[in-house]
């Protein structure tokens, strides 16, 4: 705790209460004689105990994992009723397939040197597509980097993906970001940032902004923020800050953890010793659920309910921990067989797969079959390759654009630097390859 400038106590308390909009009767903190409960300000509902006992985490059962549909595609939750038409399910299934097929193509393309980097999300397609399907278009999203399914579900086209991956002139990121660092203002998804967990307190703040904006203008529809992260990122200080501040400021934010078992090479056993990430939500006073991340329906149902909860009582945070397995390497820069057995991965792939599970459910319902599957895969693959080819041949944005957007306007310093670079490129034309870049209007940039 940092020392702070001391204010007169009464003024300080009054100011704090006024700021937080919380009314606290001064009498509520006083201890009545023979009271059974503690009235310490930091734990107001704690009963006195005359047994000295340390709580053992192992005596508490692990939080359960909710499933609507099991790995055979059979419904196991008697209360579960699918809320989507067959066509709507097929659309979402195709989103999952698209991500999976695009991942295979782009992983290979990276291996061939066609792009510098790629990350697949194999095994986690249901978490991203399923959660996104339960959110509204106006909701605001913060991703980590393995949520291409969220982008796809919300309307990111194959061309949008490919333009970013090839950093061409149609990439709204202006060729500045590494591949897979997508972003879309239209779809209300903030551009991906590599550092882990930085997006989480931002999500709390964004949710608070949405809440205040609706208080100020009730004609705005109720909105929530959804923030995605992995179980590794949950070790960062930002994760803890995010949950705590969201709880204390009652922010309508859904924290969605993809617990896929690995942070690059580090298995969960070396990442944490508690009951996953879900147990931490309870610690921060946040409503929490753990779901089977391979079950599209469980993920969707949980997110639907979470959105409802997040908007209740003026807003509150919710935590979803979706259990999955990172079938793939961390990225194209990683060879995971250096730290995990090939058989472990093969075993997982054989046992359960979110796409196969939804497919079994659809087949059992009678609106999907082998022929439809093959047609879908073929057409998606064709579309991916077409978008790939078109994006790869596009020109890159002009070199001058690298000086833009550092500040709202170019500073005199940046204008001067741009001029130096311009003179350098003119004086040494053979030393720089400008062929793949659009020429752009460098004269207009400085104005």
């Amino acid at each position, binding site marked *: 705790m940092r020392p702070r400038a001391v204010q007169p106590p009464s003024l300080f308390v009054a100011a704090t209460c006024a700021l937080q909009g919380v009314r606290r009767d001064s009498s509520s903190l006083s201890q009545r004689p023979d009271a059974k409960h503690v009235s310490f300000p930091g734990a107001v509902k704690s009963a006195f105990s005359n047994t000295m006992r340390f709580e053992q985490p192992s005596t508490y059962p692990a939080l359960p994992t909710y499933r609507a549909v099991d790995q055979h595609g059979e419904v196991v939750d008697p209360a579960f009723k699918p809320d989507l038409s067959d066509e709507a399910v097929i659309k979402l299934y195709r989103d999952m397939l698209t991500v999976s097929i695009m991942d295979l193509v782009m992983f290979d393309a990276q291996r061939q040197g066609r792009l510098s980097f790629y990350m697949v999300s194999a095994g986690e397609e249901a978490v991203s597509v399923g959660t996104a399907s339960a959110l509204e278009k106006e909701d605001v999203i913060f991703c980590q980097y393995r949520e291409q399914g969220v982008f796809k579900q919300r309307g990111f086209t194959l061309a949008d993906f490919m333009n970013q991956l090839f*950093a061409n002139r149609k990439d709204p990121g202006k060729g500045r970001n590494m591949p897979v660092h997508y972003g879309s203002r239209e779809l209300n998804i903030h551009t991906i940032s*590599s550092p882990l967990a930085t997006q989480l307190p931002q999500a709390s703040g964004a949710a608070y902004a949405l809440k205040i904006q609706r208080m100020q203008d009730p004609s705005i529809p109720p909105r929530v923020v959804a923030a995605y992260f992995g179980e590794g990122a949950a070790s960062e200080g930002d994760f803890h800050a995010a949950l705590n501040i969201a709880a204390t400021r009652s922010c309508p934010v859904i924290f969605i953890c993809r617990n896929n078992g690995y942070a690059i090479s580090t298995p969960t056993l070396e990442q944490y010793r508690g009951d996953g990430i879900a147990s931490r939500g309870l610690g921060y006073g946040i409503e929490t659920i753990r779901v089977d991340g391979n079950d599209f329906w469980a993920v969707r149902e949980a997110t639907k309910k979470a959105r409802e909860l997040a908007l209740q009582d003026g807003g509150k945070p919710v935590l979803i921990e979706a259990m999955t397995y990172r079938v793939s390497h961390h990225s194209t820069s990683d060879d995971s067989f250096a730290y995990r057995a090939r058989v472990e991965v093969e075993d997982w792939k054989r046992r359960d797969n979110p796409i196969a599970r939804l497919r079994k459910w659809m087949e059992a319902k009678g609106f999907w079959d082998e022929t439809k599957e093959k047609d879908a895969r073929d057409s998606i693959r064709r579309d991916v*390759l077409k978008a790939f080819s078109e994006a790869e041949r596009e020109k890159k944005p002009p070199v001058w654009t690298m000086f833009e957007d550092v500040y709202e306007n170019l500073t005199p310093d940046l204008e001067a630097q741009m001029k130096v670079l311009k003179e350098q490129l003119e004086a040494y034309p053979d030393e720089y390859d400008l062929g793949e870049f659009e020429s752009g209007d460098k004269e207009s940039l400085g104005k």
Partner: protein
Amino acid sequence: MKTRPIRTLSRALSRSSSTTPPNLLRIASTSHPLHRPYSTHPPNARLNLPTDYASTPLLSHSSQAALANPELPASACNGTTKRMNLFQAINDALSIALGEDESVLIFGEDVAFGGVFRCTSKLAETYGADRVFNTPLSEQGILGFAIGVAAEGMRPVAEIQFADYVYPAFDQLVNEAAKFRYRDGACGRSVGGMTVRMPCGGVGHGALYHSQSPESLFTHIPGLRVVMPRSPVQAKGLLLASIRSNDPVIFMEPKILYRAAVEQVPTVPYELPLSKAEVLREGGDVTVVSYGQPLYKCSAAIEQVEREMGVKVELIDLRTIYPWDKETVFRSVRKTGRCIVVHEAMVNAGVGAEVAAAIQEDTETFLRMEAPVMRVAGWSIHTPLLYEAFNAPDVARIYDSIKKVMGF
């Protein structure tokens, strides 16, 4: 189930495939040849060529060259050498440190399996999981933990996976590690045993978050030593000196050199001096001051200028960026009267500013100046994926600066 489609797709993506289905022809027939998509070098370049690490005079390509280093102790000069790249030399230094001193501990994200850049390979197997281990993913946790370990008298070597990710630990470094000795005063405790390793710098496609060189953020903080080696020989000696040093050291490793820079490295333990610059080539007309990877570009530019103009350029590697060796730089600039500072990090408030200011503050050096001190550095922008080649100092910009400073 997954292997067959992968093979099929490999074929689909292949430009040379003759079995490509008709609908894929558009990709297959793209005419421009397969090329590296980022930071390519143009066909007619004579300056901006890829660094030739196999012939650069900055690396010891023979055992004799390595052992002729006057800074080496006799034990090293009389010993053998082994060909190592930068990550192997770092691994060698870490292994020596663990072997000679029980108080050395090594930890960080993913270090147990060898680290994402292989610097900690086999160390956990050799020295045990109690001394070499993975931490949870939390930079502030890692460095706060390291400070605690060091405060109780041990020698932690903590790894931050990329320099770009050190910022959550800024509080621990700036407010704790740097101030620990000062705060404790006569109580006499410090965290001098602590060394923080982190890969830094551009590789051509790291973009905003895998290419930063944040050294000047740390050189501003009294209490921290900031070191950046240029080669495997330097890395081994400077890292051992850093680990044994009783001041906290930020040890920044140019990650582009991990595999690229290969040279003969003395096999025995040795230290190279901290806070001491090294003159890499002597000359009387211009002084070029740099550190880390840009030294190779400086060297290439200097060779070209010397061939064409007959001038002689002195090249200095700062090695320790703070507290830095002003005397070596002043001595050189008093001789040449001209100075260029080259670094990859942004030019604003960077190391170049510190070196230039120190030169003009030193009366004896200032009076000898024939031209203003020039800086060749990254622009005041973030590292953009596509434009790294236009942002980091290149041979042509250094070459041009030498010509300009000569023509002033």
